[in-house]
C-alpha cells in the first residue's frame, strides 16, 4: 500500500494521458447522451456529429464557434452537429478491504483502480462524455452522477482520493443499486478484484444488460494474487474476515491457482455471454498499457478509432 495518498495529478500521469489521446471509447449500442463527441446516437443534440455551419446569433454557446472559419473569414459561424447521444461512462469502483492490498505491485489495487479510473474518466471527459462514479464495498458507499465537466472529474478524483478501502466485497449486491441509479444507457466500467461469489455478480450484470448498458469489466489482480508465490511456513491472514490459514503456501499453490482459474473462467464466461468486455489487469502492468489494451480492445469491437489518439 502506498505510504501517501496519491496526488490527484498522478491520476493524470502525462505519460498515460499522451498515450490515451486519439483513442475513443466506443460503445456497441446507441447511448443516449447530450455530450458532443464521436458516438452515434438516434437522437440529435448538441453533442452531435458536425453537420454544417450557420451564422452566429447572440445566445449561442460560444464553445461551438468555429474559430478556424473566423480566422479565415472574419465572420462568426457556429457549428451545427447531428444530434449524438452523449456517452455516460459510469465507473463502479470496488473499495473493499481486499482492494487495499499491494503484494507484488507498486500500488495497491485500489490506488491502481483509482488511477486507472481517473485516467479513463479523463479520457471520457475529453470525449465530452459524462462520467459518473460509484464506490462500493459491501454496499454502495458513494455515487457521483454522470457529468461531463472537468469539474466533475476533479470531484470524482477527490472522491477517489478520500475514500478508504475497507469492508467486504459485494460486487453483485452493489450493481443492483447502480443499475437503478443509472437513468440512461451508459458505459459501466466495473473496476474490482472480484473476490466475491459469481452468482450475485451475474445477477447484477444481467440487470445492467437488461437496462441496455454496456459494461467493461476490469478485473484487478495483484501479481501475488496471480502467482501465489509465497513459500515457507506461513499464516495467511485473510482480508474482509475471510479467515486465517496456517500452511505452507507451496502446498496449496496448486489448489489456489486451480480455484482462481475456475473463478476467473466463470467471470469470463459470464461476461462473454453478455458480450461484455472483460480484462484482467495486473497492478504491475503500466496504466497506459492497461488503458491502451482496453481501448484497443474496445475499438476492435466497434471498428472505429477515436481521434483522441491522433
Amino acid at each position, binding site marked *: 500500500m502506498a505510504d501517501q495518498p496519491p496526488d490527484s495529478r498522478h491520476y493524470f500521469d502525462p505519460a498515460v494521458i499522451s498515450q490515451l489521446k486519439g483513442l475513443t471509447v466506443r460503445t456497441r449500442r446507441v447511448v443516449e447522451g447530450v455530450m458532443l463527441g464521436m458516438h452515434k446516437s438516434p437522437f440529435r443534440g448538441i453533442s452531435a456529429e458536425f453537420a454544417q455551419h450557420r451564422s452566429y446569433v447572440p445566445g449561442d454557446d460560444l464553445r461551438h464557434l468555429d474559430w478556424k472559419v473566423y480566422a479565415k473569414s472574419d465572420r462568426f459561424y457556429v457549428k451545427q452537429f447531428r444530434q449524438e447521444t452523449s456517452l455516460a461512462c459510469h465507473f463502479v469502483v470496488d473499495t473493499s478491504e481486499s*482492494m487495499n*492490498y499491494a503484494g507484488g505491485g507498486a500500488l495497491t489495487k485500489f490506488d491502481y483502480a483509482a488511477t486507472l479510473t481517473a485516467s479513463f474518466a479523463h479520457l471520457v471527459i475529453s470525449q465530452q462524455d459524462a462520467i459518473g462514479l460509484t464506490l462500493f464495498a459491501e454496499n454502495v458507499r458513494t455515487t457521483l452522477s454522470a457529468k461531463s465537466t472537468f469539474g466533475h472529474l476533479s470531484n470524482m478524483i477527490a472522491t477517489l482520493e478520500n475514500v478508504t478501502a475497507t469492508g467486504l466485497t459485494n460486487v453483485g449486491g452493489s450493481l443492483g443499486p447502480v443499475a437503478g441509479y443509472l437513468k440512461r444507457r451508459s458505459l459501466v466500467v466495473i473496476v474490482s478484484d472480484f*473476490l466475491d461469489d459469481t452468482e450475485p455478480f451475474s445477477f447484477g450484470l444481467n440487470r445492467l444488460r437488461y437496462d441496455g448498458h454496456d459494461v467493461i469489466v476490469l478485473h484487478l489482480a495483484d501479481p501475488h494474487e496471480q502467482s501465489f508465490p*509465497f513459500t515457507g511456513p506461513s*499464516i*495467511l491472514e485473510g482480508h474482509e474476515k475471510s479467515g486465517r490459514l496456517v500452511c505452507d503456501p507451496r502446498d496449496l499453490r496448486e489448489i489456489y491457482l*486451480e*480455484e*482462481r482459474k475456475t473463478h476467473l473462467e466463470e467471470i469470463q464466461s459470464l461476461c462473454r455471454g453478455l458480450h461484455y468486455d472483460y480484462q484482467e489487469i495486473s497492478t504491475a502492468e503500466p496504466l497506459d498499457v492497461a488503458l491502451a489494451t482496453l481501448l484497443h480492445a474496445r475499438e476492435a469491437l466497434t471498428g472505429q478509432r477515436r481521434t483522441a489518439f491522433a
Partner: protein
Amino acid sequence: MMINELLNPWMLIALTAMAIPLIIEWLFRRRRKQIPFPAMRYLMNPKKRRRVRIQDLILLLIRTVVPGVLVIALARPLLRPEAGRGTDQALRHVVIVLDGTYSMGQSIGQTTAFEVGKTMAQDIVRGLPKDTLVSLIYLGNRPEVLKDRAADRDSVHDAISRIKVSDMSGRMADAVEAVEKMLAADGSKGSAEVYLISDLQRSTWSATPEDQRDPKASLARLARQHGMFVLDTGGANAFNAYLTRFEPKEKVTAVGMENRYEVDIEAKNMPANGKLWLTLFADEDKAATTSPAGQKPGKLITRELIAADLPGGRATIVLPHTFVEPGEHLLRVELEGDGLATDNQRYYLANVPANVEVLIIDPKHDAAPTADPLVSNSGQLRNAIAPRTPPGFDRLSPFAVTVRRSDEVLQLNLERFAVVVMANVGNLSDALVSRLEQYVGDGGNVMIFVGDAVTPYEYNTKLLKSGKGLLPCELEPALGLMPADALSKMKAAPDKAAELLHGLAYAASDPHPAVANVRQMTRQPAPPSISRRMPFKLHGKTGELGRPVVYLSNKQPLACERTFGQGKVLLVGTSADASWNYLVYTSEYLVLVQELMRWFVGEPDRGVNLQIGQSIQQPVLLSSQYLLLRRPDFTKVRLAPLPQGNLWRVTYDQTDRQGIYEVDTSAEVMSRRRFAVNLVATEGDLTRVEPEAFQRELDRAGVHYWGPDKAIRRAVESRHSIKEYAWLFLWGVLGLLAIETLLATRFGRRRI
C-alpha cells in the same frame, strides 16, 4: 515369519525418535510468518483443503514411522528358527546317522559315497548353532554311537573325519532303533532332529525275509515328534562286480605242485561293453628279492573278463599257480573295472610245505638202497602216496613218504608227519601204541592196513581197548582166499566170482567225505580185486564205533574211521600190498589212497582263512601273558590266551575289517600267526531303493528327503540359525523414504 527376539532391545528407547517429525511439525508451525492475503476464498474449498490435510497426515505418518523402523533395524530383530530350540531344561539335540556299510565305498564321480556322506555330516555340524548337542551314530555291521550328546563340535568333526567305511553290511533298521533308544532317553525334553545319511541301498533299507523290519515305518514314528531327514549321497545303481570265493581247489599242496585257485565272481548291472580285470598277487608282503627258485613276489596273472565271460552275472575263474618255495604264502586276487572297490579283493593264506610227510611203518622195510620196495608191505602204497613225477611235469602229489620199521618209529618225531600208515604191523609194543595214541590225540592221523601179521586179538586188545583206543572198530578173523587162489578158483567156477573177488563201492547217497570224489575221478570202478579181508564189527558194547568209509561190492565195509583226540584213524580191512588183493594194481587204488591222504590232512589253512565276523582261534604252544594282534586298520589289540582243556588258545571275535590280522609273536608260541579275513559280499548288489517311490513314502511319513545336490549347510543353518532381519528393516527405511519423496513430490510438497 515371527520376530521374537531383539539383539539390542535397549535400542527401543530410541523409538522416542518417532516424535521428532511431530516436534519438527510443531516447530514448523510456530515459526510461520504472517502474510496478509486477500484472496483467501481460493484456499477455502473444504474438499480440497481436506485432501491437503490428508496428504499432510500421510506424509507425517510416513515421516513418523521411518525413525521407528530405523530404530527396530538398529535393535537387530531376530527370527525364531524353524527347528525346535529345545526347552529351558534341555538344549537342542541333533543326531547324525552315517551309513558306513561297505556299499558306501562305491565310486561317485571322483570320490566315494562315504566321503560324500562324511562331507554332508560335516556340513550339518557346521550349520548348527553353538548350543547344540550332537550325537553321531555310525552304521557298520551294527550301529555304533561314536558321540553321544557332544557339546564340543570340534570333537564331532574330528570323529567324522576319522571314521572309515566298514567292510561289513548292516541294516538301517538297526540304526533307526538305536536312534529311537537314544531319543527315548531324552524323554520329553523338546524335539530333536535326526539326519540319516545313506546311499539308500536296497540291501540296507529294504525288508528281507530274514529281517522284516522296515526303517521307514520307524522313521514315520519318530517324525511325529522330531525333525527327520534322510540325506541321499547319490549313486545310480552302479555296476559292481565282487568276489565271493577265493580258495585252492587242492587244499593239500606242496612246493612244486600246481594248484588251481578258484575265484568266484558275481557282477550286477554289468554293461554290455563292460570289462573287468582279475589279477592274482602273491607274497606282496615279502621284499622284492628274487628267491633262490626265481619267483618274484607281486603280480602273477591278470585275466580280462567281458560280459560274455559272466553268463548270468556269475563265473568261476581258475588261476593256476605253483609255489617254488616252502612256507606261508599270502595270495590276493583283485578285481578292477567296477564302481565299488571294497568287495573287489580277497586273500588266501596258504601254508606250502616242501612236502607233506607221510610215515609208513612197515616191518618188512629194507632201508638198503638196492632193496626192492615192492617186496615190503608198503611198496605199492608208497608209490600210490608219492608217485614219481615224470621229468618236465608238475609234481603229482604233495606227499613224501618215509618208511621205517616198527622199532625205528620210537626214535622219530611223529609230529612232522601228517599221516602215519601202519602197513601190516604185528607185534605191537606198548610203547608204539602209546606213542601212536599220543600222536593221534595231538592231531595226527593213522591209517592202518591189515595183513598176515595182524592178529585181530592183538589189535582188538591193544588198539581197540573196548572202544577207547585208536581202532575204529573190532577186527574179526580174516576171510577169503589169497588173490592167486581166488583167481584160480574163479577160473574153475566163474559163477562164484562174486564170492571170491570184490570190488570197491561207496555209499550212493551221503558218501564219506574222504571218498566223495573217488568215483568221479576214476570214472569207472576198478574190477573186483579184493579177495581177502578182515571183517569189522562196527557196533561195540559202548555203541557205534567207527564210521564206514569204503565198502566192498558185497556191501561189507572195507574201511572205517574214527576220531581219536584231535586226530583221525582209518582202518582198512585189507593189505596195503598185493598179498591180499590186486587193488594195489588198479588206478582206483591210486586215487583212493590220494583222496584218503587228503582227507587225513584236511584243510590245514582253514583256520587262517576266515570271513568277517568269524573268530580267530589258534592254540598257543608256549605260555604267554599277552599277545599283540595287529589289525588291517593298523590298530593293535592285546589278546590273552585262555585255557581250553590241556591247551591254551587265543580267540579274537572283532574281525570287522577285511585284510590280514597278524599276531606279533614267534613260531614257537603260535604255529600260525597270520589270518586272512575276507569280506562277506552281501551288499554286492548296489541297486538302490526306487528314488521317487521312496521320496513319496518319506513324504507321507513326514520325513524330509534331501538329495545329493542339496546345499546341506545352508539348509541346516536356515533351520537352526537365528536370522537377523535388520537388513530388511533398513531396506524398509529406504523404501519408506522413497515413498515419502514420491508422495511429497506428487502432492507438490517437494519442490526440486
